[in-house]
């Protein structure tokens, strides 16, 4: 590795209230950076943040106050007494910065220009909903005077009233052809990547460093996805392993209880996934997800929900097979069987023996067993994977991606359930829904890992041909 160069300094500049701080928050993944409000001029200071990869600082980003009075400033710069020799842009800006107005009327603008002069390049954030007014043109003229490469970033491009083409025209006229679309409300999946790629177009010498950042971000994405599959696998194992012995008299209450617990467990997974992707439930971004106020709108145990996702109701016979011979009742997503000694002999010796013991005791007391059936597992698997996909694409074009995954969902609808799920049926101790923390069993952990791997594998297989 070559000597550690100083980090690339980028000034985030733009008119007031166009979302400069939002862009910084997204790029730094630091939801608490700076202050954001609908009010113009929320940021009045210059604040920095550093992006590092493997402990090496690669980029320093500086959030600046908004440009507000570009028209008057332009006039002022032009009015400044002419020097003997012809001044170029940066010299003119320097002359302005040393004038008294740079500390009074144009104090904010001076901060921005000073920061841009000290930086390697500027990210010029544009509210694409705005018409290209004269003040923005003046702003751009002043900023380009600094002689630094400028990369325009179009924010709010997903709004209905966006005027992207008008902006692109104007930007092209002043020689800014590399433009990035980056909606901070619904950031596109590859938004950051494209931003850094475009940046390396204007800053050729920084290409290796920016490429490192891109690679790092992509690796992070992979890891995040895998972590997501793990969360889903954990949920499925938990639910699959769940089995409760109940007395027939308390059947309804028990069903109600189990419904409630499974719903809650699903919600737990939803929240963990949201957290993994740094979504906050009250986030504007969360609106783009298939959730309503941070939870799934359709009830898990409503047969209509299953129908909607194309899962055959009553396909839960296999689940019962693990719990005994009599599958006598289908009760809203749960299977009910007599507690019998015929358990699945998949497990290890000790567990199986213990299992038999418990079940025999149950039978003696006339208990029945309540477990979650296959259809519900399928529903959970499909729903959570949809959510994961939506989170990954951050709601953007989520519909198309879901279409793409149809063969995968088809597999979950009708195909055989994964082996770890079947195994889990025989281990009630693996479930957190049976009243106790799941046992720290390496077999359970192995099953979770196996299931997560198979989820990841299925998804990557399905994506490739598409």
């Amino acid at each position: 590795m070559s000597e550690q160069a100083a980090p690339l300094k980028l000034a985030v500049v733009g008119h007031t209230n166009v979302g400069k701080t939002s862009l910084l928050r997204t790029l730094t993944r630091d939801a608490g950076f700076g202050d954001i409000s609908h009010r113009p001029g929320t940021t009045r200071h210059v604040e920095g943040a550093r992006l590092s990869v493997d402990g090496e600082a690669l980029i320093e980003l500086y959030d600046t106050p908004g440009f507000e009075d570009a028209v008057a400033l332009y006039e002022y710069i032009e009015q400044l007494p002419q020097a003997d020799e012809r001044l170029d842009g940066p010299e003119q800006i320097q002359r302005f910065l040393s004038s008294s107005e740079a500390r009074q009327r144009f104090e904010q603008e001076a901060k921005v220009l000073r920061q841009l002069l000290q930086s390697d390049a500027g990210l010029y954030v544009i509210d694409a909903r705005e018409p290209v007014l004269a003040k923005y043109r003046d702003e751009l003229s002043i900023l380009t005077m600094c002689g630094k490469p400028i990369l325009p970033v179009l924010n709010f491009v997903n709004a209905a009233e966006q005027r992207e083409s008008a902006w692109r025209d104007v930007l092209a006229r002043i020689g800014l052809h590399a433009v990035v679309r980056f909606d901070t409300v619904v950031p596109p999946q590859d938004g950051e990547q494209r931003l850094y790629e475009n940046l390396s177009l204007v800053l050729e010498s920084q290409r290796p460093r920016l490429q490192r950042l891109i690679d790092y971000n992509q690796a992070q994405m992979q890891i995040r996805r895998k972590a997501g599959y793990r969360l889903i696998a954990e949920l499925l194992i938990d639910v699959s392993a769940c089995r409760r012995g109940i007395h027939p008299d308390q059947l309804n209450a028990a069903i109600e209880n189990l419904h409630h617990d499974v719903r809650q467990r699903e919600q737990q997974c939803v929240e963990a996934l949201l957290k993994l992707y740094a979504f906050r439930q009250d986030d504007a971004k969360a609106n783009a997800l298939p959730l309503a106020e941070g939870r799934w709108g359709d009830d898990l145990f409503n047969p209509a929900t299953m129908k909607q996702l194309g899962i055959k109701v009553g396909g839960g016979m296999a689940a019962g097979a693990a719990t005994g011979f009599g599958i006598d009742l289908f009760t809203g997503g749960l299977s009910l069987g007599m507690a019998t000694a015929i358990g699945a002999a998949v497990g290890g010796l000790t567990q199986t023996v213990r299992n038999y013991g418990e079940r025999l005791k149950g039978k003696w007391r006339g208990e029945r067993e309540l477990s979650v059936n296959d259809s519900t597992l399928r529903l959970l698997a499909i729903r959570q994977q949809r959510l994961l996909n939506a989170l990954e694409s951050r709601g953007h074009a989520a519909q198309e991606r879901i279409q793409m995954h149809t063969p995968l969902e088809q597999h979950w609808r009708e195909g055989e359930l994964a082996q770890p799920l079947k195994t889990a049926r025989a281990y009630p101790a693996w479930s957190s829904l049976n009243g106790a923390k799941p046992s720290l069993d390496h077999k359970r952990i192995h099953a979770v890992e196996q299931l997560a791997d198979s989820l990841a594998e299925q998804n990557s297989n399905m994506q490739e041909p598409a």
Partner: protein
Amino acid sequence: MTDSRSPLQTLWLCEAVRLREEQTGLLEDSEACRKARSTQGSLAQRLQVRGLFLAKRDGLVTALEHWLQGAKLALWMLILSALVSGVILAKTALSGDPQAINIFWALAGLIGLNLLSLIAWCLGLIFSKQSSSPLSHAWLWLSNKLARDAKAAQLVPALLVLLQRHQLLRWGLGRLLHGWWLITLCAALFTLIALLATRRYGFVWESTIVASDSFVMLVNSLGTPATWLGFALPDSELIQQSGMQALKDEQARQIWASWLLGMLLIYGIAPRLMCSLLCEWRWRRGLSRLQLNAADPVWQVFEQRVQPGSERLGIIDVAPSSLSGSVTSSQLSGHAAVLLGIELDDSISWPPELPAHVVNAGIIDTREQRRQMLDQFTANPPARLLIACDPQRSVDRGTLNLIAELSRTAVQTRVWLLPTNSDAERLSDWQEQLDKLKLAYSCSAPWAWLEHGDE
């Protein structure tokens, strides 16, 4: 950095901490993370620093020491049990009438169970991904009991998960299993030698349905490998004679004893030794390659804590204590009523239908238009100036300055916030700013005022 701890122990402790956090929620780790962040190392190193720190703080390190002591003790107990089993094995093999020991029963007693267990292990190696045996369970259980430390209970799952993830579990447990059998069989061998050396045994074979020819062949083919090591092989005559009765002849006894020892060595000890060596090799190789795989999603939760992708640099340039504001004032006299739009885009049809006597001054946007309009108003101050703004635009100081400057050229000024479908927040921002300027504003056009003034 990892003080004298082996990589296995370090990773083990990290895994134990992680499993604990997975079960009971994240630990308070600000100090640990600070330590990890100050390590200028890779992510894996940082994660290890964090894990070790938490393990030390929460007593897992001492628990590990206790557990290792327990495990050592359990290992000695296993070795003892292996020795005892070996002796018992040899004794039972040669029990019964010493003058007529059934050679095949003795052989089956010596290596039968061992062979079954070995075959099971080999089948597991080929077909199953799981790898555990009752013996390894017993050892783990015993180690836990002997550790006498409640925290040690968290360690075993962590070890198993860790080894499984690195595909070492099979070899680790295999080492244990084969080692136990190796000791048992060696003990059996020495007991056998001792018994054969100090007592007189006669060997026979018996069968109701097997012909003596096939028996001869069986003994020969089984015994051939042992002859390479110098063990004796009974010739067919001897075998056939032994089928009738136990031979009194000393040489016959020695040959049979030698054959039996050879069998034990070849079919009992040798395969176990090979398996032991295989496991030992894989185990050592695995251990030397053991390192924390930071790309595993299980560590994702901690990554940003020990190696933040972004950090704040703080405020570089502080906010000004006050911003220069604009001041409005008015002219004393002027003529005409003027309507002026500022920064209106082409989506708004302009001008609206105007009452009579109201002059439309158009829309100003650019610098030149501004200057021209201000010049014009300074020369001919309007009596009433209505400035139309689009509240959909974000209000900024530049626009406010312009409005203030325009107001200074007119006798009376009002602002008309056009009823475009702007969001309420922006509208209230405008109202707030105009209040600060002490300018009257309305969301509907004040035509009456513009035409006739306040009266």
